[in-house]
Each structure stands twice: as C-alpha cells, then as structure tokens.
C-alpha cells in the first residue's frame, strides 16, 4: 500500500478512484506519563512519553485508514491529511483521511 500526501502519485498514473477513506483514534494520556510530564514541565524540554503517545496514535489511525482502503481494493491512498482535535479533558483524537485509488 502506497501513501502520499500529494494529489497524484509521482511517476504513476491513477486508473481508478474509490472515494474517501479515513481512520481515527482517541487516546488518553497515561497517569504515570502524566506525572513525569508534570515534572518535566518545570525544567522544559522534550516530553518523550507524549511524543511516543502521539506517534502510536498516528500509526493506529493510519493503519485503520489503510485497512479500509485495502477492503475497497485500492493499492494507494493519495492526498492524505492529518487532523487533530481534543475530545475531552486529557484525551485527543487523531483523524487521518485520504482518497483511495488504484495506480499503475
């Protein structure tokens, strides 16, 4: 499965279009990570626990989108966009969407 965030796939041509596919995940922060993040908040710097959380959430959302595209029979998702929103206190949603197509 190819993923690109451009409208076309460079070097290939789109032969069939299956419409929009999307995947999302809502993640809450972990209590243990939260305490560490609170301490880190005094001295500043990267919050590794949160970086990890963000990339895990992103991978899961992408996986769900790819699964949906695969079921439609696509071999590529073009024009992928990420969007985030905070659903509740301490929880956030990562939403990823794109257009499932077949390329040759």
């Amino acid at each position, binding site marked *: 499965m190819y993923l690109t965030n451009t409208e076309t796939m460079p070097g290939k041509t789109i032969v069939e279009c299956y419409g929009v596919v999307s995947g999302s995940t809502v993640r809450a922060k972990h209590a243990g990570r939260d305490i560490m993040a*609170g301490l880190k908040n005094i001295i*500043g710097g990267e919050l590794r626990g949160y*970086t990890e959380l963000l990339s895990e959430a*992103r991978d899961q959302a992408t996986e769900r989108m790819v699964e949906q595209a695969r079921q439609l029979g696509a071999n590529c998702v073009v024009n992928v966009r990420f969007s985030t929103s905070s659903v509740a206190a301490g929880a956030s949603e990562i939403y990823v969407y794109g257009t499932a197509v077949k390329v040759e």
Partner: protein
Amino acid sequence: MEFIVFIFLIALGYFIGSSKEKAHYRSIVSREKAMINLPVTSSKHPILPLPENVESHMVVGSVVISVDYFKKILAMLRSIFGGEIASYESLVDRARREAILRLKESCIDAAEVINLRIETSSISKGGQNQIGSVEVLAYATAIYHR
C-alpha cells in the same frame, strides 16, 4: 514557605531550561547543516526532473516539547499587558524544526521531499492541570529516484 518554593521553581526553570534550550538549538543547527542536501518544499509538484523509476512514500515526524516554569510565569505576566510572547516563540520554533528534522532523518536517501504540511496537535490540552506543551506533527511525501 510557598514563596520559597515558587522562587526555587523559577530559578530551576530558568537555569536548566535555558541551558537545555541552548543545547537543543545547537543540535538542531548541526543536524540541519548535515541534511542540507535534501531539499524540502511545500510545493505539490516535484521540483527536480523525474527519472524513469520513481518511488514515493509518505513520511512523518513528530515531537512534543514542554515549556519551562520560568517561561510560563513570563507568559502569564505578558498576558496581563498583552503583546508578543517571545519566550513561547522559541518553543514553537524548536518544535517545528525538530519535527521537520525527524521527518528528514526518516528518509535520508530520498531525492527530495515535497508537499510538507505541519500540524500542531494537542494531547494535553483541556485538563485541569494543563501541561504547557506544544505538539507538532510534520508530514510530507518523499520521492526516491531509483
């Protein structure tokens, strides 16, 4: 007693925070120099001429950076009078540059990187004890000339 803790936290934030920021900037600048040969654009179309065999993949880079206590207090004071909060600008700048660097590091053998998009997200937003942090997600399409 509370006042002493407050002063201690500010001092801790100021000294460790600023030394950490300087170290981070040093690492950003040296890594940016090392990867100057990989062009990154926000253009939708490839800039370099495409050869016969082209492969393209989506690449991502993300980072979460926290603000220190000193800057937090400085920003709080600033929000009374209004105006530019310079202490937060460096925070956002560091986070964006770091995210782009991680993106580039994940596709070091690509010919070029196009359609760069930067999303500022939030995991820690909305809680009662809100943690001042900035979360940046950069994504783009890497083009490999094979």
